[in-house]
């Protein structure tokens, strides 16, 4: 039984069709890597899952845990366990990371029928999770992503994921902008969250990330469709040959 089931998905953004018949199934515990050239629709796929208002699903099916995702508000999807680590995390001036994350976690806990955490309990939890991504505690007192370096923003996304414990995490180029050490730390953080109940979709351009976060499947997205799927070895093939074969209409051997 799939956790996520996408069938013949068509989606529009900014007046043109971006996703043109995409199908993908993700079972609990699986990690799927999605690769593909710039502008092929990877982030658009992530946005469809998270419910970004500027992307419109025109046809096809997207089921999450058997429920029709398309009809759910973005916050409801989040509360149901969909997490998107943004390719470009957003700054919220004047709102501390601590306050923001506590509000997020408590909204989700409330939805699950769990008691809300008070400031002390939350701080304890946050401290624990910060160790996971080796983040300085000072970052908690700073405004959400404001003035964070590119790498710090990405780390902050993984921290949020660790705290919110989603059922499906979509990581959109979480590796870009990270130095080698940070890449290892972030991967370690992500790996520690792998579990039989939690699925991940990892969008990346680089095989290097997949050396650390080893996927069960690799998909190539091009022209709004998945044009090839395979095991983790597909990533190294792509690394060698690039995407020129797509234009030529032939798959690499």
């Amino acid at each position: 039984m799939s956790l996520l089931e996408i069938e013949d998905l068509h989606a529009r953004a900014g007046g043109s069709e971006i996703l043109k018949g995409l199908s993908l199934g993700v079972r609990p515990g699986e990690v799927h890597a999605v690769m593909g050239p710039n502008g092929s629709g990877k982030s658009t796929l992530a946005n469809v899952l998270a419910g970004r208002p500027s992307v419109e699903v025109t046809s096809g099916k997207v089921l999450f845990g058997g429920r029709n995702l398309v009809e759910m508000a973005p916050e409801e999807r989040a509360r149901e366990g969909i997490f998107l680590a943004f390719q470009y995390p957003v700054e919220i001036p004047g709102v501390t990371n601590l306050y923001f994350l506590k509000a997020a976690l408590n909204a989700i806990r409330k939805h699950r029928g769990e008691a809300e955490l008070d400031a002390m309990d939350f701080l304890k939890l946050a401290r624990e999770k910060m160790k996971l991504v080796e983040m300085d505690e000072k970052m908690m007192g700073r405004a959400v992503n404001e003035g964070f370096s590119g790498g710090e923003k990405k780390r902050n996304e993984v921290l949020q994921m660790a705290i919110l414990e989603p059922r499906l995490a979509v990581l959109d180029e979480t590796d870009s902008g990270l130095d080698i050490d940070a890449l290892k730390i972030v991967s370690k953080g992500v790996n520690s969250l792998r579990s039989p109940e939690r699925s991940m979709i990892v969008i990346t351009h680089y095989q290097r990330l997949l050396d650390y976060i080893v996927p069960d499947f690799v998909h190539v997205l091009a022209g709004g469709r998945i044009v090839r799927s395979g095991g983790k070895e597909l990533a190294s093939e792509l690394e060698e040959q690039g995407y020129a074969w797509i234009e030529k209409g032939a798959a690499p051997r």
Partner: protein
Amino acid sequence: MTPGESLEHLANREYKWGFVTDIETDSVPAGLSEDVIRLISSKKQEPEWLLEWRLKAYRRWLEMPEPEWSSVRFPPIDYQAIVYYSAPKQKKKLESLDEVDPKLLETYEKLGIPLGEQKRLAGVAVDAVFDSVSVATTFREELSKKGILFCSFSEAVREHPELVREYLGSVVPYSDNKHAALNSAVFTDGSFVYVPKGVRCPMELSTYFRINAANTGQFERTLIIADEGSYVSYLEGCTAPQRDENQLHAAVVELVALERAEIKYSTVQNWYPGDAEGRGGIYNFVTKRGKCAGRASKISWTQVETGSAITWKYPSCILLGDDSIGEFYSVALTANRQQADTGTKMIHIGKNTRSTIVSKGISTGHGQNAYRGQVRVQKGADGARNYSQCDSLLIGDRCGAHTFPYLEVRNPTATVEHEATTSKIGEDQLFYCQQRGISAEDAVSMIVNGFCKQVLKELPMEFAVEAQKLLGVSLEGSVG
């Protein structure tokens, strides 16, 4: 509803303080004339010099034009339709708070300002003004032990006429502008504070203004004098019933800080703003000014303006003493059809005077929000410095933000810096919050509070919480 619409859409906001207290009043008939002013003055058993001052102000008012330089728009005010004095009937002179009409105590309790001995707010002394008069002042004995005078303006005229006479009109002359002239002619009550030399006022002083009677204007006057080396923090809050007619509130506040004295003046303004179509609401036309008269004195204005149909106010500082400091921190929120034209004037006269201006304007619905600020550096103000920051936040497409900074620098050694930004609550920010499970409404409130943080942190604790709630309430329904 598309996301674009959902950001734009502004539903009715609910005004929770709109009730009316049913109480017998002693009022003068509607209309303004020398006779009405004489009547008010005699009701208050005022000395002759004060009546004369009122009459001079009135005669000046008759000649003055309405200020037309601001961007607020409203039909002409019919001054003859307004009642200039309305007071709850009181049988005899009050000996203690226990004798205050229970209906009044109940009113203030409903507003969250309990006055009774047992329930009153810890650490905050309150002067409660109901329509034209002060009905109670708490913690008076404690304050008087330190020599601090905190009482209604009327009482100050009776008990401390020498202080009132010396300072009344010394910062805001009656001829300053039409609204100030009107106030000078007909003001009925307000608060008076005097903090003696070297005394640090041990608690927050506060006035809570309540308009209750219909067709009545509120014209209160506040005078705060901080003697050498003293400190006082003063708070002001206000609400009014929900009515379809506009009501006029034309107040004057004068602050005087002598050498090394510091006055911190905070306002949370929540007059009835009118309904979604712009019916009713208070015209809030207020003249507030502080004089840093002594060396190294400091006056700091903090305001959170969420109410009123129209807000027209420019709390200002005259930096006369060398090394004196003026500050202005402001949040102004306009929703529905509200208009705000607010800002400050910083007049640098003394050497090495410094001023800081931080203004945050938030507009939603059809709200119009203007920042209007003047920084003037006089010839003799060597080394004067000013820093101004004006940020505007727009929620939706039908509201507006406008910034009018005026700089006048007559001294080459002065440094003046001005920064201004305008941003929209981006769908990106909203979506980011929602993706983390936070509802759109909570997200807007969170983003707005973050935007205002620099100002909110200047408020005393008890008020900061109140102000945050108010901003939240005011934004209710701003996303649909």
